[in-house]
């Protein structure tokens, strides 16, 4: 993936540092080296000036001090120039070639300064000549091994020419008076031997330095490559991790699928990705999530296992890489793929508990752009995706069954409702004495029958509410209103004030929003029912003298309504079943024998319908706290603001 094309790079997410960093790494390295060279040169120049001063004042030797000091000053001067040039280039983010050019200029001037220094400090007699070795090493660092060897030769030739000219008397000898007892520049053997050892030292130094440098460079390349690979691997791991999180964060099938195709395409750096799932017949693959493909391509025709060779191949459990998709015999819709610009396709099966149930595909616009790493990645995504999709599908089935149950409850209770209502009417007619007075026992029997009927009526009504929640009949009733949430809660609290006072409870409304104007889009009946249910429970199950507090808060568009009490609480073993239909905790049952056990199930359904959540915390004999979170609605405009709660 290091050799990715620029078009693939464009779609790469910017979660980790950009892969472009590979190139700038080399430039940064060069700029650092240049700065290092400049720092050393400051020292060298100061060294020249200082050495000249020491030689003349401390050792009292005669040298061409003005010339040597001049050379030192010249080095300082041109080094200042290089210093500023490097700074400017850094700011302008100059390319590597500009730095190479700058180094060449530095080396050229250094070598001129060097040969002048050698000449004016005694030529072949000068110990300064050894400093050429440093310059050869510098060349080895910045240039090729060939250039390093050439520089060794050049240093030797320069020294030899200087020695030769002085030996022949064609160049005046600039020796250091008092350094040697007798000048050596005219002693042939000395000159030849010194030149020989100088040349061989230079060549060996060049060879060693460039060998070391070559190894270093190789390592540097490896580091650059590895960091690129790490970058890609990091991205992929992150995407896999995100995909794994998707599995846990949502059970909405559509959401799971969309996140999968998008993150796959983005991380692989390809233009498109799709997921197709087997339809109910088990013969055709239907597109269920698409990223980056046109509608025209999707409408190309059915993909059936019978006629689509690629699908069949993938369904045998294989990853199929078509590096040159248009020329692959496996491709069914060649023309459409060509029009779409697709050149390479990588497909992996989605494997469920009962074998393959779909296929995930990545599409690239350049042939042969999928490598083995891509295959491994797509398989990993497919495996993560498979479990996510299976979970979501299972959840969808449960939801559908639950709705079906709701519809059934609705049908049955509807049929039960009118006879029960009529029996109640008939009984109350009897009780009212229209048929003449009844004997005392008869009245008692009638009262018992009435009580049973009241319960039956409540049960039927609750079941209808529950079914309404499950099937969404009430919530989708078309009368969703945007209402001021705090008013609604306040009114619910007011509805229970009398009851709470009669029971001698400390009943409070804690409004931490304080007129911020938080709106909510709900079916008012549904919202009231939820609150009434929770508040009446809190009052019912709290002993006189206890506290019941309703509080509201809002945080980042999420409304939180808390209904807290200091009542009988919920036994730990009942917590898990509290919202189940017909479940009643033993302590609640003991306190209040009549009750359908449907109230909280209805509340839960309704809260779910309002896109909210309900949770409960409780300790037996200490109290309970029900927390309802709901999405806040945007503040309505003035025309619809007359939707103020009816008071």
């Amino acid at each position, binding site marked *: 993936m290091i050799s990715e094309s620029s078009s693939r790079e464009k779609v790469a997410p910017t979660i980790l540092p950009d892969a472009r960093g590979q190139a700038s790494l080399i430039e940064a390295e060069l700029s650092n080296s240049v700065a290092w060279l400049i720092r050393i040169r400051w020292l060298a120049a100061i060294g020249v000036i200082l050495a000249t001063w020491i030689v003349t004042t401390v050792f009292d030797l005669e040298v061409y001090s003005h010339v040597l000091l001049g050379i030192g000053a010249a080095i300082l001067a041109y080094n200042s120039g290089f210093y500023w040039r490097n700074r400017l280039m850094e700011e302008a983010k100059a390319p590597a070639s500009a730095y190479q050019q700058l180094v060449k200029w530095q080396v050229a001037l250094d070598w001129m300064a060097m040969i002048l220094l050698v000449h004016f400090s005694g030529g072949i007699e000068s110990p300064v000549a050894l400093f050429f070795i440093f310059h050869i090493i510098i060349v080895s660092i910045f240039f090729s091994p060939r250039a390093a060897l050439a520089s060794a030769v050049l240093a030797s030739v320069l020294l030899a020419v200087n020695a030769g000219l002085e030996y022949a008397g064609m160049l005046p000898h600039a020796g250091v008076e008092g350094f040697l007892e007798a000048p050596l520049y005219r002693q042939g053997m000395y000159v030849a031997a010194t030149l020989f050892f100088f040349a061989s030292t230079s060549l060996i130094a060049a060879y060693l330095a460039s060998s070391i440098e070559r190894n270093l460079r190789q390592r540097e390349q490896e580091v650059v490559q590895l960091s690129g690979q790490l970058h890609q691997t990091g991205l992929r791991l992150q995407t896999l991790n995100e995909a794994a999180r998707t599995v846990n964060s949502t059970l909405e099938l559509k959401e799971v699928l969309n996140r999968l195709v998008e993150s796959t395409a983005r991380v692989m750096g390809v233009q498109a990705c799709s997921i197709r799932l087997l339809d109910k017949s088990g013969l055709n693959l239907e597109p269920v999530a698409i990223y980056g493909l046109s509608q025209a391509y999707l409408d190309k025709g059915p993909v059936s296992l019978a006629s689509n060779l690629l699908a069949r191949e993938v369904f045998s459990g294989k990853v199929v890489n078509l590096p040159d998709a248009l020329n692959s015999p496996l491709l069914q819709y060649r023309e459409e793929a060509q029009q779409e610009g697709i050149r390479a396709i990588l497909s992996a099966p989605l494997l469920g508990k009962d074998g393959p149930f779909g296929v995930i595909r990545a599409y690239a616009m350049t042939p042969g752009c999928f490598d083995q790493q891509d295959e491994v990645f797509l398989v990993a995504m497919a495996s993560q995706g498979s479990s996510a999709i299976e979970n979501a599908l299972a959840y969808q089935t449960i939801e559908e069954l639950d709705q079906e149950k709701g519809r059934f409850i609705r049908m049955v209770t*509807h049929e039960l*409702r*009118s006879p*029960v*209502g*009529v*029996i*109640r*009417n*008939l009984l*109350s*007619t009897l*009780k*009212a004495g*229209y*048929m003449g007075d009844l004997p005392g026992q008869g009245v008692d029997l009638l009262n018992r029958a009435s009580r049973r009927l009241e319960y039956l*009526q409540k049960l039927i*009504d609750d079941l*209808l509410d529950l079914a*309404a929640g499950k099937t969404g*009949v*009430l919530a*989708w*009733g*078309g*009368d969703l209103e945007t209402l001021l949430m705090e008013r609604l809660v306040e009114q619910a609290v007011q509805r229970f004030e009398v009851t709470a006072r009669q029971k001698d409870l400390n009943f409070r409304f804690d409004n931490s929003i304080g007129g911020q104007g938080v709106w909510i889009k709900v079916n008012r009946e549904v919202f009231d029912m939820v609150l009434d249910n929770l508040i009446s429970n809190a009052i019912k199950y709290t002993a006189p003298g206890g506290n019941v507090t309703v509080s509201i808060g809002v945080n980042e568009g999420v409304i939180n309504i808390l209904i807290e009490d200091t009542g009988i609480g919920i036994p730990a073993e009942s917590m898990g079943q509290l919202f189940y239909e017909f479940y009643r905790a033993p302590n609640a049952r003991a306190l209040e024998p009549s009750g359908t056990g449907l109230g909280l199930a209805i509340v839960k359904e309704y809260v779910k319908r309002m896109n909210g959540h309900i949770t409960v915390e409780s300790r037996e004999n200490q109290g309970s706290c029900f927390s309802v979170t709901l999405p806040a609605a945007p503040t309505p405009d003035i025309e619809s603001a007359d939707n103020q709660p009816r008071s």
Partner: protein
Amino acid sequence: MKKKVILLVDDDEDLRLSLRLELESGGFIVYEAGGVGEAAQVLPKITPDLIVLDVMMETPTAGFQFALELRDKDPNSTWSQYAQVPILLLTAIHRMTPFRFEPDDEYLPVEEIIEKPVDHGVLLEKVRNLIGRP
């Protein structure tokens, strides 16, 4: 004083009996009809002061339609002479469907709506509110 007359239209015989007894105990004269068709036959024979009308009978909206026919603004319509008779609608529709109704001159020209099941005493009270004591 002449007793007031109520036409009670509901397809549930038992409910009719119970409601009739309640209304009669309040001093009203009650005629019954088991549906819109029967009501159409009974109406010309009586002069009701009030019609108590169920909604779901022959069809799920039979009561609505009958109310609309009764309140037809055309002076030549079949029921023009009953156009001023108040109508009290009995319905379980609020509980059974997501639809919400309230009396409306144009679409639901009735005086009052009572939700089924009808608790004892409620009907009598509403009737008295509408047409007064007999």
